[in-house]
Structures are given as C-alpha cells and as structure tokens.
C-alpha cells in the first residue's frame, strides 16, 4: 500500500510513518503542503491508496486539497488529521470529500485503527 502523508510538520509526518509501519507492507511519500501534494500526485497518478491530510498548511490547506483531489478522484481514501475538533469542522471536511477524520493528539495505535477501520468500511461498501 502506498500512502501519501501531507503535513507541514516533518516531525508529525515521521510520527505517522512510524505508526503506520504497523500496517505491514507500506511505502510512503510526503508533502509539506497542498501544492506540493498535488505535484506528487501528478507524478504518481492513481499511485496512492490512502492520503493523510493536515488541515492547516501553507500555500494550500487540507480542506482545499481534499476538494481539489475530489474534483477528479473519487476513489483514493482521504483522512483529515487535525486539531480541529468542533463538529462543524468535522462535517466541513467530510462534505469536502474526506472519508474519515483523525483528531490530534493521537496514539500510534489509534491512528492505525482509524486507517484499518476506514479501509474496512471501503471494502464493505
């Protein structure tokens, strides 16, 4: 499984990589903001099973990124990862096209569970 990690904090991307290594056969690509993410995606069309997307980032934020991706790609799993915990923000992200939502802070186990749960829902659908 190829996962794209989009977060302006390199520390946070490393934390996510370490946690998601528990999934087994995974490879990672990274981007520091929405613009960079779109460039990575353009170089690897259809190449990612899953993307973890931070909300607050320079140049293009996570919400804008998700909306842009969903214009042409309805399949790739997108999980918003953010401190924004208000219900309205969660709904906003889901309406934009996120498949699921992970609130910071999170334990490595919680992140893995969230990803597994999201994958399972997709298979069941």
């Amino acid at each position, binding site marked *: 499984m190829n996962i794209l990690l989009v977060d*302006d*904090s390199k520390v946070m991307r490393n934390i996510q990589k370490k946690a998601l290594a528990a999934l087994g056969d995974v490879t990672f690509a990274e981007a520091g*903001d929405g613009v960079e993410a779109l460039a990575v995606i353009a170089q690897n069309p259809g190449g990612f099973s899953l993307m973890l997307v931070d*909300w*607050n*980032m*320079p*140049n293009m*934020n996570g919400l804008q990124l998700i909306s842009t991706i969903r214009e042409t790609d309805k399949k790739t799993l997108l999980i918003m990862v*953010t*401190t*924004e915990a208000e219900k309205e923000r969660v709904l906003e992200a889901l309406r934009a096209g996120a498949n699921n939502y992970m609130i910071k802070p999170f334990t490595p186990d919680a992140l893995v569970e969230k990803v597994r749960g999201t994958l399972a829902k997709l298979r069941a659908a």
Partner: protein
Amino acid sequence: MQYDDHIKQLALFVWDAVLHLPLDEEETSPPVGQRTLSACVHITGAWNGALALTCGDGMAAESAAIMFDLERAGVSISDMQDALGELANMIGGNVKALLPEHCHLSLPMVVEGIDYSFRVPGSRLVSRIPMRSGEHRVTVSLLESDAVAA
C-alpha cells in the same frame, strides 16, 4: 503587497502621532548582544502573519514615559512592556487595514532577552526594517504565513 514602504510609513506615522518623536531609516541592523524587548501581534484570517517591534530598554522606557505621562525614573518593566505592546498593536492594526477584509489582530505579547529569535513555522520574513529614533535603535519586522489559522 510590497511591505517595506507601507511598514516604514506606518511606523513613522505611529511614532509621530503617539510619541512625537522622529523615526528615521537606518542602514544597518542593530548590534547583537544587547538586551531588547520585542512586541509581537499576530494577524489571522484572510491574511496570516505576525508583526514584531523590537527596541532596547531605553526606547521602551522613553515610550512608556510619554504614553503614560510618567517620570522616566518611575517607569517600570510592566510599563515598558505595555508601551511596546501598544505601539506594536497600533502598527499592526494599521497593517491590518491594508489587508483583505476579515482579518483579526491578536493581543500583543512581549519578549525580553539578549540573544533570541522568532520563528513562525510555515512563515517567512517578508520585511525587516532597521530604524533609529534619536539615539535608540528600533526594528520592525513582518512575517507572512500562508497557513490558514485554525
């Protein structure tokens, strides 16, 4: 937006209107190793960044004495912090007026120390203007972030 000229003009305006003191451009940055105070205000909304105003004790004390109508000898650290915070607030407020609508200004915070730096992750320094008010060195800095604040 070209920031340097706007920031200079706003700083001059505030120094003249509030302190009735001259403020001139300076060619070089102030020397390191001296104790300074920096007042910082954040701007959030349609434009995101921070404005910082830095000077030495002497300028901060003189500003406090003028703004709060105090004898120079009676100016406290708190007065200096408040004065600088207020000046940053005014310059920042005027910068905000030049920006797209729907921006908010935070309350100011003031840092004191000898050898410190500001870093705003995801931001870049877009303007750093060394100036002089009489014998005192003053620096106004603007950092811009494209991150959408939470």
